[in-house]
């Protein structure tokens, strides 16, 4: 029995820490990803997402912390983890001066995939890239590059995919196709940990974690994360929202104001006070205000602002 079979978690890490040149990049991060789960990893740039992912796939050694990835110890079994995990780096990291087929063939050889040629052919066919097989990877568009990278990561049939911002710089349709594919893979029992900046992608994840400045601020399903912050939110429509926004920001109960096109979202943790303040400032000005469900984006912006002000306070 492989160690992987003994655990219900594809990833189970506790208290990961990493410092670079004295800079504390990842602070006590603990994560659990169930098998067959799509786990969204969110956070602003430079918050430690990439470093955390690299520690989980054996590329980086954590300064402290323990854990397993597919049942293998992340400190000792990096070779096994590399063999059974598919890792897609943040920037396109295949060889631009090799063709698609050559890139796939190289990967297949590295993982010593039995029936290599057929595996590459199959992979090309599944991705609809058979006709492009002889095109140089460097000439591909962002969307195709990303499809090729995913195909390469999937060649050795990993049980866990670690995807670091896979859809950055990819058009919306290609993103949607990509996520459809991820969901098919997850349905087939493959676990996926994916970092992203897009809310529409976060919504499609089974579980989410939000990291900021190296610290994990929230973890759970979207509902759990939303509920956990106890925010109530109002949507305000009308004229000159920018002016109103300035005014609202001075109010005690207003934690944040965010503009979504024609609509201004106002959130706060003290629901009663917020309601009173909104009535005072908004309704009297003739604009419409309506209480809505707090959504993920409100929460993430709130978390981000919160972490920043905390960091500012500590400094």
């Amino acid at each position, binding site marked *: 029995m492989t160690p992987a079979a003994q655990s219900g978690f594809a990833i189970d890490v506790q208290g990961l820490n*990493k410092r*670079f040149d004295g800079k504390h990049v990842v602070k006590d991060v603990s994560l659990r990803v169930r098998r067959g789960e799509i786990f969204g990893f969110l956070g602003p740039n430079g918050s430690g997402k990439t470093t955390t992912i*690299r520690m989980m*796939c*054996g*590329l*980086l*050694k954590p300064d402290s912390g323990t854990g397993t990835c597919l049942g293998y110890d992340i400190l*000792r*079994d*990096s*070779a*096994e983890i*590399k*063999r059974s995990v598919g*890792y897609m*780096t943040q*920037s*396109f*990291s*295949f*060889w*631009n*001066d*090799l063709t698609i087929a*050559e890139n796939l063939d*190289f*990967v297949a*050889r*590295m*993982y*010593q995939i039995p029936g290599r040629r057929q595996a590459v052919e199959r992979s090309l066919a599944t991705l609809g890239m058979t006709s492009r097989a002889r095109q*140089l990877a460097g000439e591909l568009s962002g969307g195709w590059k990303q499809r090729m990278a995913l195909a390469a990561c999937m060649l050795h049939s990993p049980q866990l995919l670690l995807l670091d911002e896979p859809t950055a710089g990819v058009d919306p349709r290609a993103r949607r196709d990509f996520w459809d594919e991820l969901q098919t893979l997850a349905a087939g029992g493959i676990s996926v940990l994916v970092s992203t900046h897009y809310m529409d992608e976060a919504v499609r994840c089974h579980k989410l974690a939000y990291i900021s400045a190296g610290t994990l601020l929230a973890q759970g399903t979207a509902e759990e994360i939303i509920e956990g912050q106890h925010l109530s939110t109002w949507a305000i429509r009308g004229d000159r929202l920018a002016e109103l926004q300035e005014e609202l920001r001075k109010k005690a109960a207003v934690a944040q104001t965010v503009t979504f096109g024609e609509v201004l979202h106002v959130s706060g943790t003290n629901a009663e006070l917020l309601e009173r303040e909104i009535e005072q400032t908004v309704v009297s000005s003739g604009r419409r205000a309506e209480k809505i469900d707090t959504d993920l984006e409100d929460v993430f912006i709130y978390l981000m602002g919160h972490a920043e002000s905390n960091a500012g306070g500590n400094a």
Partner: protein
Amino acid sequence: MKGRQRFSAARWWAVVLKEFTQLKRDRLTFAMIVGIPIMQMALFGFAINTVPRHLDTGIVSADESNVTRSFIEAMQNSSYFKIVKRLPNEQAGREALARGQLMFVVNIPAGFTRQLLRREHPSILIEADATDPTTTGSALAAVNGIAQSVVQRELTGPLAGLQAGAPNDRSSSLGWEAGPAPFSVSVHQLYNPDEITQYNVVPGLMGMILTLTMVMMTGLAITRERERGTMENLLAMPATPLEVMTGKLVPYVGIGLIQASIILLAARYVFFVPFFGNIGAVYLAALLFIAANLTVGITFSSLARNQLQAVQLAIFYFLPNIVLSGFMFPFKGMPGWAQVIGNVLPLTYFNRLIRGILLKGNGWADSWPSVWPLMLFTVVLMGVAVITYRRTLD
């Protein structure tokens, strides 16, 4: 555990194939493979000529005879000297030399022929512009040969008895003591005792070219992966450092051998360097030297953060190799500290090795003192390279 993973020939072969394919795509690299040896050959073989010919020469002759005319003609024919001027006296010759108009002035004293016939061993004086001794050295080295050819050509028939000092004649000079030459040529310059400088330079070039291209190209090969972000991908795959490193190196061994062949062909058919040794031994020596340089390159690539730094390191390494390896200046003529540094450089041993094999026909026993330091260097640096190669990204 790291130790659990064994070397896999299949994966290694994958790296080899990938590297070849990429090389094929890289036109600039290909241009370098062919361009660098040709450019260096042109520079060092033609432009930087340590055996310059047709050097401007003036004649101050106070004695006109068949012998002196023959001597001047022989100088001209040797192609080292180009007689451009006849000067009235020594004074005028000195001035021309001082002004840099002439490289040499040949002074034939009055009564030269008469003294020659009286066996008084007269002397012709050649004054040379000694500013750059390497420029004049070879021409001056040819002078004695010219004098001898004149003796053999002109002192014939009734004058044959005057040939006493000619080495060719020693065996047949019955009862005669081998005396001094009928006339001598004295020069005001020390010249290099090594009379085959040209032959020395061309084989020496092989080591220089291999050092430059091998160190630079392997240095770039690995930093390029790091700079383009593909190294992270390689590291995330189940490949051991040894597989990646040796796999990446193999194509460059091939390139090094191609360069060696280009240089050998040019040496043979362009510079007419005589090959006394075994050509197989030459290639074995080249292979060993290539290996030594590849380990230097790979160590540099572990130190360099980007391709530019790799190039800078390569140049930094290249310079002492040119100066201290005995390629440009005689090794024994260097000060002690320079010899110590030179003794650490693989090029020093390769120069001795390749010159020994090509020019002297050295065999295994003669070569060994240069072979083992190269082997030691390679093994030690390979160890350093494997240690410094970053398995993980931190």
